[in-house]
């Protein structure tokens, strides 16, 4: 806890969008006089939304991994691959570097997001002041890697568009990739809806 006063203590509120500082009137339906966006001391229902989105993302992550994401038809040889089987296949067929990239982008990154967000949420809820700087760093990491987690979807989309040699070779997207894409979008939304200031609040303040 810093000795510095908080905006709340001073009866001030800052707009999330344009950054205008207004007086805190203590209403829920206050809006920024400049840009018209809603004014909250903290992001509205940040913890609940983040939880909800995170849980939804996790639910969708299951079919994303269990269902095949891509069908490769090569000379009549039909091959359906899930994310993990694709990674294994890449590894076995002699491209461990690619396998590592895909594994990182498709398995490590989403799992990392789930874990990090869950940790942040739990710690924010309990209001502990444990490792605040590190937690803040974790949050920035999640924000950063969020850009890269659509890698699989891009790969499938690109291959589907590029590899169209009818009989010789063909790549088709399968439902798994939709779920994977949804998972990624939901995790991004979740990390967006998390208010990092909660880390510093030292206690729950989700109003």
């Amino acid at each position, binding site marked *: 806890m810093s000795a*510095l*006063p908080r905006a709340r203590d*001073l*009866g*001030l*509120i800052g707009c999330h969008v344009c950054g*205008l*500082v*207004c*007086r805190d*009137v203590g*209403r*829920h*339906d*206050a*809006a*920024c*006089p400049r840009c018209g966006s*809603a*004014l909250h001391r903290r992001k*509205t*229902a940040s913890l*609940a*939304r983040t939880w*909800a*989105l995170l*849980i*939804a*993302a996790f*639910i*969708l992550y*299951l*079919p994303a991994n269990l*269902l095949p994401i891509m069908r490769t038809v090569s*000379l*009549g*040889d*039909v*091959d*359906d691959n899930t994310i993990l089987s694709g990674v294994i296949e890449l590894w076995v067929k002699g491209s461990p570097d690619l396998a590592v990239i895909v594994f990182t982008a498709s398995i490590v990154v989403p799992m990392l997001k789930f874990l990090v967000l869950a940790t942040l949420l739990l710690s924010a809820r309990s209001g502990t002041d444990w490792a605040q700087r590190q937690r803040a760093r974790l949050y920035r990491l999640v924000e950063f890697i969020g850009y890269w987690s659509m890698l699989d979807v891009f790969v499938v989309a690109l291959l589907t568009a590029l590899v169209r040699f009818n009989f010789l070779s063909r790549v088709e997207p399968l439902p798994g990739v939709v*779920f994977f894409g*949804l998972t990624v979008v*939901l995790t991004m939304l979740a990390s967006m809806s998390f208010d990092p200031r909660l880390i510093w609040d030292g206690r729950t303040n989700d109003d």
Partner: protein
Amino acid sequence: MTDNPTPSRDELPEPVVQRRRFNASLIWLVPALAALVGLSLVVHGWMQAGPNITITFQTAEGLEAGKTPVKYKNVVIGKVNRIDLTRDRSKVRVRVALEKSAESFATAGTRYWVVRPRIGLGGVSGVDTLLSGAFIGADTGDSQEYRNEFTGLEIPPAVPHGAPGKSFSLHSDDLGSLDIGSPVYFRRIQVGRVVSYQLDKDGKGVSLQIFVDGPNDRFVTTSTRFWNASGVDVSLGANGLKLNTQSLATVLAGGVAFQDPRGPHDSTPAAEGASYKLFGDQVTAMAPPDGEPHYIRMRFEQSLRGLVVDAPVEFLGINIGRVVSINLDYDDKKQRFPVTVGAVVYPQRLGRAYDKLSELAKARGEPDLSIMLGRLIEHGLRAQARTGNLLTGQLYIAMDFIPNAPKADFDPAGKPLEIPTAPGSFDKLQEQMAEIVDKLQKIPFDSIGRNLDQTLGELNRTLKQVNGEVLPEFRNTLKGAQQTLGTADQALSNDSPLQQNLGDTLKQLQRMARSLRVLTDYLGVHPEALIRGRPADPPQARPAPAQAPKQGSKP
């Protein structure tokens, strides 16, 4: 950032009041929706999941867990889940997850087999699997009984379930070059194929199942004849060399052909599963039916080199059967080795003669033809081993009437009937030849040679003597003879004195003959002159005899 620069609260702008747009609790709809989607997936998957079946194969070649599809009419009805070995490691168990819609394939009659590329003499199949990998083919059955354990076929079934057509069964002595899938031809059009074959239970033949596709199955009638159309028929007849085959494919891969016999016949379409005999070739197939075979036995007292199993048995030149066995026997009494030849004959091949004979036999109240046969044997019917081909020395059995054949015993009740035999014509010839050779061998060629040698020596000596002594003398003699001849020649030449003397002599002789004639003429007229002497001549009579000497003295 402390109180100091902060404008007073009143100077700060007042927030405007807005209607709250959205309830925070609505966010929980997102995971609920996700859960719903996930649940629906699970439910969908569960609903889609059909029965799980296990198929046993000899090998899992070309099969891949999680990938190999199961197809019926090229529609995917399931997928291979797992492949493992049976407990005794002799076979492969393939777990297949069928789709919900393919529940009916988990029934007792369903057949499963692996479709792999197959290249045979009859053609290539499953080419698409070369690239896409093998798949498991399925075919429905009639049964509704649930089952999840199947034994996979190693060879695709030749006929899909419910295909229009009929299957028939053929019986043959051996399979020949036929195989599953071998074509069945009707007038050289392929109308079906061999579905399966197996040995008869007693092992004495082969049963084949063929399937003739509709609508051509109606051409299979109750009197249809089937024959093995494999290979090439080469026949050398009066019209020249004739080569006959169904198609080039059958030469290599074999095939079955069928046709109705010529002439009036029953042409009702055959019933499903009807049974036929598979003949070896078209000629035997189209021949009138052989009827019941009869086994006969013959004992030959001679070597039968050149007689082989399947050699023809002919009756007066008509093929009535074939040899089925040739065995050597030992006769203790005669101390000889007779050859026992067993043959199968088809009396019906005798045609009208058989009909008449059987009618006669029936009229006489005889149970079968054996008594009739005995009568024929009394009249000289004998079996002979004759040479069919002088080059190869192949023999055949000929049943013929031998004039003045020695009487033979015949037991009409014997089983099998034993036909008395006669030595073949060629054998007789051989015997005679042997006798001649025997006699020739008895001639003392050695002593004859020695004598001849001696004689020739003496002759040689004589000739030498002749050359040395006789010839010079002979030459001298010849010379003498030549001289003599020369002398004679001289003596005989026109101007030789001998010739002249001879001419003179002859002339004088002529004159003498003339005077003799005059004398006889005179004596004829005057016989008395012989006694009285000549009277005085009239003057006319004189000049004639006087003239003659004048002429004669001229040379």
